[in-house]
């Protein structure tokens, strides 16, 4: 395994850990015309998406502060987040009734062009996270 692949593999492990960690950390009070004392029911959460925005010109180095948009195809709503200093992002995702295959992930950053969003599902289990790497090149 060359250094580049090792780095990608390591980042994937870190990302998976972050994805799992955030999922576990998210709990607490909630409110909405509801009681306010209810807790989140994470059983209803759908597939999370995570990954990196990568600069292909710099051997896959993470690109910080990249806009990441998740959108249900044909829908009228989107979720938007940005990558952190390591170029990593995580989107908790839509409900479990949303087929992750219908969710498009795109990345954008000034000075870069998205070449391809490479995605792979970590397992076939329902709700299993989908890794999406935005492979980007400088314009």
């Amino acid at each position, binding site marked *: 395994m060359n250094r580049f692949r090792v780095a990608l593999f390591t980042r994937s492990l870190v990302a998976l850990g972050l994805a799992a960690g955030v999922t576990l950390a998210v709990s607490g009070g909630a409110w909405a015309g509801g009681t306010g004392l209810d807790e989140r029911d994470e059983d209803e959460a759908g597939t999370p998406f995570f990954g990196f925005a990568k600069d292909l010109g710099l051997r896959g180095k993470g690109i910080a*502060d990249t806009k990441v948009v998740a959108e249900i195809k044909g829908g009228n709503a989107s979720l938007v987040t940005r990558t952190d200093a390591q170029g990593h992002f995580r989107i908790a995702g839509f409900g479990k009734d949303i087929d992750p295959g219908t969710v498009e992930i795109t990345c954008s950053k000034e000075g870069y062009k998205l070449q391809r969003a490479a995605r792979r599902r970590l397992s076939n289990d329902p709700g299993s996270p989908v890794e999406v790497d935005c492979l980007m090149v400088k314009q």
Partner: protein
Amino acid sequence: MSKLQVRVFPPIMSKHKIRILLWLAIALIAPASPHAQESVALSGRVTSAEEGAMEGVLVSAQQSGSPITVTVVTDQSGSYRFPAARLAPGSYALRIRAAGYELDGAGAAEVAAGRTATADLRLRKAHDLAAQLTSTEWLISMPGTAEQKRPLIECMSCHTVERIVRSKLRAPELAAVLKRMQNYANNSTVQHPQKRVVERELSDKRAREVADYLETINLSAGETSSAGAAWSYPLQTLPRPRGRATRVIITEYALPRATIAPHDVRPDQQGFVWYSNFVEPYLGRIDARTGAHSEFRYELPKPNAPAGALALEPDQDGNWWLSMMFQSGLVRFDPRTQQFRHFPIPPDLMSDATQQSLVMPGRAKVDGKVWTNDVDTRTIMRLDLATGAYERIDPFRGMPKGRQHSPYGLAADPDNNLYFMDFGDESVGRVDARTLRTTLYPTPTPASRPRRTMLDPKGRLWFAEFAANKVAMFDIHKESFTEWDVPTPHTYPYDVFLDRNGELWSGTMSSDRVLRFDPASGTSTEYLLPQQTNIRRVFVDDSTTPVTFWTGNNHHAAIIKLEPLD
């Protein structure tokens, strides 16, 4: 200072001219620091046997028969001063606030024109410290995890945490109380509780979980000490104000009924301060100069539903808009004609639980549309002013069903695109005014529960992250967040306002403190308020120097003006 000015004048200048120039110089300097050189109506020193001279003690003066109470704070030498312009001649009752202390004897002063009255105040140890703790201090004092304590922040909407910790109920009884409490409307106070028309469910399991914890922090174990009730944990108080936090004048305007619950407070250009009443069908206002009070009543479309309005927002024509909560729909008030116009929710979009808690008419001139929300269906609604029709937008379609959502704080950009806070969860949302496409931006802190907001002219959305104990900014152009922790744990900020100097002001339902925070330097000042104060919307008047902070005391029927003495 005067010597220096005299020295720079040419020697040929006569004494008379020098005197005139000196007066001119003083007159020019004075407006920049209106309180620094004012004559003093009442002054004194605050001491105690334990500390000697005491800094950071709030001293409040209320003239007999007046609705206005003025408060100043002792400086490092324990001295306080009321400017003559703030206290008219007459008899005043004095009270103090200093955690752990109470006034030794009755406080009173006679203020006469043209001279400074003196009232030195002696403090003694408080005999009931628990009665002085804020909800924030109770939450700091009590044992337990953040997750265990978090449900209590819901309770503060209607009452303080003290009510819970003083109870002697065991878990089964507490669980029953929690289930019963779900059926009171958000717009309830101790003075004026209101039942919901449509009941809310809290599961037995969840009620028992919360109750099991509450049993560990209340007086159900029945312990007492020589001083009376005793808790199994030490009671902690926050430090008294110091330095900059003591340089302030606070004016409280008492409203004429204890049931009045001012929620949103906004001054106008004519010297009036308007407020929404959270539990009664009135729009109220005071004259900031005299404290004189007026009320304007609107009709209740649903007489059996809870009354009161939450948000008060101006439109570009100088009208005031109120969101009518469980009465459904919006009302617009024209201050020139003093007439209301109701914009009802049509029957096909209405239920007994329909609840409009927010309104945003600020950019209605762009497209003739006013934004609001419906808490019951967790949706955004938009009113067409020309037809009176509403349309519904569901920004959470496709989102996980196990999460609560609630569009809450609203702001409109110059094109009348809507930005909203998802108070139930963790996102800032956007609705495009033309396409109605929605975008959700999750905050960096999960489960932050963003609450009220304002949009500044640079396109920065400032907001309070209620459950995260943070204030935050979302740049609508860069689509990126910055978050800052507030300095005191368990503050739970409700709202923020950015002043002309780039400083943020925030208030809370729990700490009896007003936060002033400079995002550029990260420095903050917390001004303690004279009494238990449940703050909702905050507003800063940039037209004064220094700026003036306004808010309401939602549970104790008062409008509050805070003037920093910078």
